[in-house]
């Protein structure tokens, strides 16, 4: 066994030397994750606020102005332009300077004073559906509320029975992330995506490279076991993946104030299992890929696209067609995204998340097993 340890040690040392000789590699495993973290955490937000709005007040009365103030006061709309004709709306929409237009027709105040239904047109640019949906939702709600207030004031003045004017008032509470900062949502998931990219991408080429260099055969004529080679190859990347986990956690806390509510042990355990699962996947690619190029491409297809799009990191998996949900089960990323988010934000522990932990453990075992088997078969042909 001590011979095995010496041999594994030699592989680990060698792998680190390769890393040290290639400064771009350092860039890929340290700098790129930090840039990704900053990009995603700073740039992406799902809360639609301050939708640029153009208002056209053809009534120009104190009543119409007080109505428009509701828009100005709403966090969802930002009045960027006061137009005078309908042509201004076309212009603003064409040049993307506004996405919502509120048009108050002349006679607005007069109609209301007469107890009538004053007409307002709200035009929403649907070319950016997310913002459009929110704008649509909130402008409907805003008008309902305004009408309710008008009715109430009128009924009050008339001394009428108010029983039909009781109102439900939604009090929205956001759990786990009360300020709804999208960085809280994205960073725990982003960590998973970054680990997946770093580990799968780099290990996918590691065995192919030995084959390309011809050093494969030299390893084969040595007493080295397959399992020793695998462990020796995995160890450095396990360390680097953990370095990335720690780095992202610390940066997330320092820069974005991400809470770590659960046990760090649960996160570490999850990360370890996930790293093994990803490395297993990388090794599997490496064991079956005929060339470096192919390995690279497969790694990109398997590591990047599914972990980015099918992990639930930014896009809710419950919303996608069932076939794609099944596909997502075939990749380890979604289990880890669930674990990471639950541990960071919900304070969950191993006991709460045992199905995910079990899935990752099984995944890691199967991947490492298969790749070890396939690699062996290939090398002795």
């Amino acid at each position: 066994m001590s011979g095995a340890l010496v041999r594994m040690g030699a592989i680990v040392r060698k792998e680190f030397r390769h890393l040290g000789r290639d400064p771009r590699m350092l860039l890929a495993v340290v700098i790129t994750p930090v840039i990704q973290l900053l990009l995603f955490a700073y740039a992406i937000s799902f809360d639609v606020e301050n939708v640029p709005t153009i208002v056209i007040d053809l009534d120009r009365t104190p009543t119409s102005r007080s109505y428009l103030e509701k828009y100005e006061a709403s966090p969802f709309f930002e009045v960027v332009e006061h137009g005078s004709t309908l042509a201004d709306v076309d212009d603003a929409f064409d040049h993307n300077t506004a996405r919502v237009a509120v048009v108050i027709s002349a006679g607005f105040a007069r109609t209301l004073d007469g107890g009538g239904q004053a007409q307002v047109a709200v035009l929403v640019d649907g070319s950016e559906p997310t913002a459009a949906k929110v704008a649509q939702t909130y402008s409907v709600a805003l008008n309902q509320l305004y009408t309710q207030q008008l009715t109430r004031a009128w009924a009050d003045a008339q001394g009428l029975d108010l029983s039909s004017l009781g109102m439900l008032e939604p009090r929205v509470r956001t759990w786990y992330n009360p300020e709804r900062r999208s960085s809280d949502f994205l960073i725990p998931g982003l960590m998973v995506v970054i680990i997946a990219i770093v580990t799968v991408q780099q290990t996918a080429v590691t065995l192919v490279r030995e084959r390309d260099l011809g050093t494969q055969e030299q390893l084969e004529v040595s007493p080295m076991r397959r399992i020793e080679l695998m462990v020796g190859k995995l160890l450095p990347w396990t360390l680097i993946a953990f370095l990335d986990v720690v780095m992202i956690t610390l940066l997330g806390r320092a820069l974005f104030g991400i809470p770590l509510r659960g046990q760090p042990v649960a996160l570490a355990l999850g990360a370890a299992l996930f790293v093994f699962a990803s490395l297993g996947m990388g090794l599997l690619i490496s064991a079956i890929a005929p060339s470096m190029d192919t390995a690279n491409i497969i790694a990109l297809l398997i590591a990047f696209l599914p972990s980015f799009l099918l992990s639930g990191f930014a896009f809710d998996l419950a919303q996608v067609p069932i076939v794609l949900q099944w596909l997502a089960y075939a990749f380890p990323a979604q289990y880890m995204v669930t674990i990471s988010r639950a541990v960071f934000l919900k304070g969950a522990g191993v006991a709460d998340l045992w199905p995910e932990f079990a899935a990752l453990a099984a995944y890691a075992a199967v991947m490492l097993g298969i790749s070890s088997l396939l690699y062996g078969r290939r090398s002795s042909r």
Partner: protein
Amino acid sequence: MSGKRIRLLIWKEFTQLRRDPLLIRLLLVMPVAQLILFGYVVAVDIRNLATAVVDLDRTVTSRKLEAAFSGSGYFTITQTPRTEDDLRPLLDRGTVKVALVIPEGTQDRLTRGETAPIGIIVDGSDSQISAVGSGYASQIVAQFNADRREASGVAIEAPGIDARVRVMFNPTLDPVNTMIPGLIAAIMMISLMVIMSQAVVKERESGTLEQMFVTPIKATEYLIGKLTPYAALATAQMLLVAAGGLFWFRVPFNGSVWVVLVGLTLFMFTCIGLGLLVSLVSRTRHQAQQAVMFIMIPTMVLSGFIFPIQSMPAIIQPLTNLIPLTFALQVLRGAFVKGSDFAALAVPMLALVGFGVVIFGASIVATRRRIAE
């Protein structure tokens, strides 16, 4: 410049492509995979959110409210726990994403004409769901209030606002309608940048690039010969995506084909330039791939391709103007969704001209200098 030599180079490039069955398959699979992933995963309408309802009121009103929620299509009531305390584990495990709590005495308060608070809890660990979910909930409650008001006689005489909210251009608000035009531009960028930089670096790796420059072939001829096949391939891929979008996802096309063609042609120069620049700074294909990733990630995040620029913080938004894809998306989405003409798209078109001149020009100058060395 010799047409014969250029034709020879183009033939060579196609022959090499044909000998690489994996690449061919990949070039076909990539647009299809992206069409599926972006069409069904990214451009997805959030609906049927798993919802828990805690009805402590147990009245006609509370049941009506529940019905309003489940009838909206946005919420699917999957759990009805007895107390609020039971919500915690449901949200912890992610069994439900939204919870509606109707306190005891809600109906009584309403009939007294008071304002009755109801609790809506959203899972903030998923920003998208919490943003959209709380918006839908507010809309449903507002509608509920309005219906109650209208059902009474008071509303008939009372003043009110008849707001007509109309969605222009994309009335179904289907995100696919903007995703597919965006994907056409994105796939051109990916194809030209990734595949072309790989091809040039491969040529350098195998030493044939050096061979090429001891022949009478001119740098310009080499570039044209190298670029034409990949531009053709990218065009084929774009057509595939466009066909998939128009016929499978039934994306409407409202604009002018000319606007799309001019926009894409302008953008193509930028993409080619970026591909050449990548191949200049990379010695191996692996490095080229990493350089491409280095460009692609900020491009995907900041261009508004996946995440709307609208939602970005004000300090970040100016940065999006540094990303060429941002303007290509404006042109394509404008043409597809809004039917915008050249005049309306003058700014992004000019921006694309600017990027094209600078990036393509720089790459040509740098490549020629490199070759001359």
